[in-house]
């Protein structure tokens, strides 16, 4: 097990109104660490030196909560496909590397501190219609409502979205279309979600616009960076639903 000597260039910012700047650090990691463990080592070092540690967000550390937002060398969640920062291992870096770490940057994701950004804009999009308003009661028998295999697969793959915001961070326009379309798709594909589908589409898109996200230029940087590899087909289907709604009578 060999040590890796790394140079880090990390964004430090004291709050939404602070201008922020890059700080340079040196850290010794090893290839078995995850990226976040490497940052833990850095922070222990900073704390023992009585310096301000680097704030970053994390929760599950197993790639399912979407908290570990940061841009590593220009790539949200780092260079690997379909991988969150917490699941990124240091073996993908080399001894002597300089790693630049920035927060997700978007007008709608203001920086709270250092690498931690406020992604509550996503919560408000969900609150606008990303739910099913029925009393679910007890869990249904599996297969009580038959769902075609392809439909179930589409719903499942859209439901894999962990709301991490990497799509916004990756998009040159900071657009939230991949997230919103995934949330619309995973409900809209299934019978329980169909009832409120049209209203949901309109309300969630309206809230997305309200939050100030950019418009989609179909660059597909979102799909390339999404740790859950959500497909841009969901965006097409959101477009289709939103446009189609205009031609439906109430």
């Amino acid at each position, binding site marked *: 097990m060999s040590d890796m000597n790394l140079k880090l*260039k990390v964004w430090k910012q004291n709050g939404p109104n602070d201008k922020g700047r890059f700080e340079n650090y040196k850290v010794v990691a090893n290839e078995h660490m995850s990226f976040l463990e490497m940052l833990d080592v850095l922070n222990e070092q900073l704390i023992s030196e009585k310096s301000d540690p680097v704030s970053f967000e994390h929760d599950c550390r197993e790639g399912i909560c979407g908290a570990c937002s940061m841009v590593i060398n220009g790539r949200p969640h780092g260079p690997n496909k379909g991988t969150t920062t917490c699941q990124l291992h240091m073996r993908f870096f080399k001894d002597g590397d300089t790693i630049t770490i920035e927060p997700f940057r978007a007008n709608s994701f203001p920086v709270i501190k250092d690498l931690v950004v406020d992604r509550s804009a996503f919560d408000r999009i969900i609150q606008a219609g990303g739910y099913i308003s029925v009393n679910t009661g007890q869990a249904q028998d599996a297969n009580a409502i038959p769902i075609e295999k392809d439909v179930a697969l589409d719903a499942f793959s859209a439901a894999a979205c962990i709301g991490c915001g990497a799509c916004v961070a990756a998009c040159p326009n900071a*657009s939230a279309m991949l997230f919103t379309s995934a949330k619309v798709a995973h409900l809209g594909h299934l019978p329980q979600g169909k009832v409120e589908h049209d209203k949901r589409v309109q309300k969630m898109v309206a809230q997305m616009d309200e939050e100030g996200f950019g418009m989609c230029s179909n660059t597909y940087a979102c799909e390339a960076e999404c740790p859950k590899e959500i497909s841009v087909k969901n965006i097409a289907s959101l*477009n289709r639903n939103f446009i189609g709604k205009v031609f439906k009578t109430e």
Partner: protein
Amino acid sequence: MSWVTTFFTSSIGRKLIMSLTGLFLITFLIVHLIGNLQLLYNDGGQAFNVYAKFMTSNPFIKFTSYGLYAGILLHAIQGIILWRKNATSRPQRYAVASKSTSSFTSRNMGWLGMIVLIFILIHMYQFWLKMKLGDVGMATYDGKQVKDLYKLVAATYQNPLFVIFYVLSMAAIGMHLWHGFGSAFQTLGLNHKKYTPFINTLGKVYSVLIPLGFAIIPIYMFFVLNR
């Protein structure tokens, strides 16, 4: 707000306008190219001038041309609004920019569109406006007088700077459509493994062949007809 304003000021509504006007302009370019290729006939411009006369006097084509002007305006205005809005969505840029996950053309639609807009303005001033204002000579074929647009075009393409300008502008249109063609279908919500690969390939073929076809005209007229 009525549903019309709500729809067309929403992000997806705005993109729908971009897509529909863009596809309309794509269709127009085919017709425009087929007509213009008559400039390559070695007949002193007769075929082209007769065609130009037809295009400016046929009522149906005149009507369609108003749609075209409106389409260009709408596409350009909406495009600039979109471009500006998108630029403000990330006020602070990344120190390290990732260029590997999206194409150059898709990231620069606004700039490419601006080049195309400047081209369209100069192009319309040079030919369309001069023709409208009757700033061109007359040619007589079979006893009938028509405006000699051919002569104006041929004279313009004697200037190598204009030849270069036209060729570069065609490159910009080609790049705009390299991304724009396929993108327009995604905006319409048309994305399916059955036809999307075909549309995207067609888009690449179109965005090379059509601008190339246009670019050949000034090059040919400069090197061949002028000699």
